[in-house]
């Protein structure tokens, strides 16, 4: 008796094992496929991030840099930056600047996407080409072009504004006043960001079923109402993801300001990324710089988390 039971049990367990192995194979396949990408991300992203976080809890100055060894100081770096009035000014400036740039980018990008939808073939191709060209200009080249346009002495901006009798802009220094200076940066950044938003939204708009729009129009909805009640809800995930991306891009703005101002921006032009770089590479307080960078990452994460959660929820409903 006992042996029969035993053999049956063995048989069953073997069958089960085979079954499990098969299932395991199926379950593991996606992970196996993801593994190379995960490894790459781990090497180029996770490890440096780990080093950054570790450094943010260390005293890491020039002395430590040369010896490749920091000294642990607990949360002193964070305490220092949170008590630093300059830091909060920089945070406020960065948040405000990001808000302005992202709003302008989204509004203008949407407007251009809608325009693309209405245009005839030739104009649409022309406009799309223009957008793609802007998108394909490397940041540094774009900055140099803009820098010449707003040049103090030879800039075409000053020349045009003077010729149009908008005022005397001869030798007008756009960066003497941080408000006009940031105006130039906002224009540059929005200009560079619009193509991606416009083309992506246009792609999305092209997917909105015609019947829905027609039905809404037949029900007596005006164009604005159709856009708000039909188009926007359908494209909500795209809007959310584009806004999140724009926030991430604009929040960490660095090159534009850095290159335009000859790698020596005045403190009026510090954004968080520049402030972190300044603390690290100019003052040689790498620990402080790392702490600022970590705070910056957390800010961006918090800002985008809201949107990402909404988006995931929207995905579930669909």
């Amino acid at each position, binding site marked *: 008796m006992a042996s029969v039971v035993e053999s049956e049990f063995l048989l069953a367990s073997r069958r089960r094992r085979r079954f499990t192995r098969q299932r395991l194979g199926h379950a593991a396949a996606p992970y196996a496929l993801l593994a190379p990408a995960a490894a790459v991300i781990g090497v180029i*992203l996770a490890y440096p991030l780990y080093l950054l976080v570790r450094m943010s809890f260390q005293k890491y100055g020039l002395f430590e840099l040369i010896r490749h060894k920091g000294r642990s100081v607990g949360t002193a770096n964070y305490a220092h930056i949170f008590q630093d009035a300059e830091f909060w000014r920089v945070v406020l400036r960065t948040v405000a600047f990001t808000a302005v740039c992202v709003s302008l980018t989204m509004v203008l990008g949407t407007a251009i996407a809608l325009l693309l939808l209405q245009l005839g073939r030739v104009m649409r191709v022309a406009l799309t080409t223009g957008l793609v060209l802007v998108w394909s200009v490397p940041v540094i080249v774009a900055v140099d072009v803009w820098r010449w346009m707003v040049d103090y*002495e030879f800039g075409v901006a000053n020349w045009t504004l003077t010729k149009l009798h908008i005022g005397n802009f001869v030798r007008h*220094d756009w*960066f003497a006043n941080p408000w006009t200076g940031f105006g130039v940066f906002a224009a540059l950044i929005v200009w560079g960001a619009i193509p991606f938003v416009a083309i992506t939204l246009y792609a999305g708009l092209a997917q909105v079923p015609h019947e829905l729009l027609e039905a809404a129009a037949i029900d007596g909805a005006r164009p604005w109402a159709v856009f708000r009640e039909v188009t926007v809800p359908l494209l909500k995930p795209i809007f959310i993801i584009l806004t999140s991306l724009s926030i991430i891009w604009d929040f960490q703005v660095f090159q534009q300001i850095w290159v335009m101002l000859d790698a*020596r921006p005045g*403190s009026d032009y510090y954004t968080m990324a520049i402030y972190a770089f300044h603390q690290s590479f100019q*003052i*040689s307080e790498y620990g402080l710089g790392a702490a600022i960078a970590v705070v910056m990452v957390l800010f961006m994460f918090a800002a985008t988390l809201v949107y990402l959660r909404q988006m995931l929820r929207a995905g579930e409903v669909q």
Partner: protein
Amino acid sequence: MKVRYLVAALLAAMLAVAASTASGGTSQSHATKIVVWLQNDAQNGWPEAVALANRNFKTQHPDVEVDVQYQSWGTHLTKFDASLAGGDAPDVIELGNTEMTKYMAAGAFKTLSQSAFPNNKTWLQGLKGSCQYNGKLFGVPYYAGARAVIYRKDQYKAAGIKGTPTSLAAFMADGKKLMKKYGKNAGYSAVYFPGKYWYAAMSFVYDYGGQIALRKGGKWKGTLNSPQALTALTQVQTVFKSLTRASRTTDEANPQQSLVFAKGSVGSFIGNGWEWPYALDPKVGNPSLEPVVDAYPMPSHIKGKFMPTFLGGSDLAVPVTTKNQSLAADWIKAFTGTAAESEIAKAGNIANTTKLLAFNASNPKLAPFARAAKYSWFVPTSPNWANVENANVLQNMLVSIATGRASVKAAATSASNQITRILNTGA
């Protein structure tokens, strides 16, 4: 459904966003090659001196290659820090004399034996001081520079100016005459003086008896808000207001002031000795100005005296990470020997040895700078000074004054407080 694919693609793009930059490393050094970082002034101003040093070094070490990599002032320390962290720092590096202390204090350089280097008994005292820390030598003086007023003789004459000014008041009055004569041209500057030109602005401060900072009882205190400094900065403000149309937010190197001068709409500028020949350089400047350019030491507010000039200069050091210390030292010897230093002096600089001072005095194009160099000032010798420079404290203050965003007093007080804070950090 298709919208969803789009979203998925965007999400993937989002993941890629963070991983955007990567820095390329330079080659590591074997005993077959040494890497030298020089500032691009050498590339523009005295390439012959570099070539000479390389030739001399080659005869001594035929199988060792010298890779001279030119750096710019704005970014070379950042790159140096990164190379120290990455373990691929150069074997020889040029540092500005104001930048030395920070690195010497952090132990970034090998100690050097003074007696091994040419002319070591006659090194310029000011430069030698910047190579020493705690009684040890960490660098070799390379060259010094003094600034003088480089001006257009023809314009001075046309504006009715006789001779060159011997007091600051006369300098200002002459500037006004130039503005009256040429100022209708909206781009004209009697004195090209960009807003961030702190070397020139601080000369005013030292002339009036002020200082950037003072050390008392082991503690530093920023003193730009002293009455003397405020008087001086008010004079600088007058230059900004009435004698210059240079940008109030740029510095003397972007654009290169000597090249702005070469364009013709500038009566004078306060420049280094090498900037005179550079303005006439056929490749970048305007050689036709040759007969009408001259220089004189910047006059003091006390009649007959000169305004102290910033004793700028560079030193050469051997980073602690090098594996080729003796080769590095040999290259420095070749580059700071009398032959190469003569070339450097010829280009408009003050050589590192007093032996060559006569050389400058006998050359009419160098004499004004040699005379100006007799009265000089230097930055506070604190390991943290480089951080004051890198934090742009003085530049920010001057921009505030030049643009009128803050009063002289408010701007100077804020700068002084920052200087006090930075200099005492970690002390």
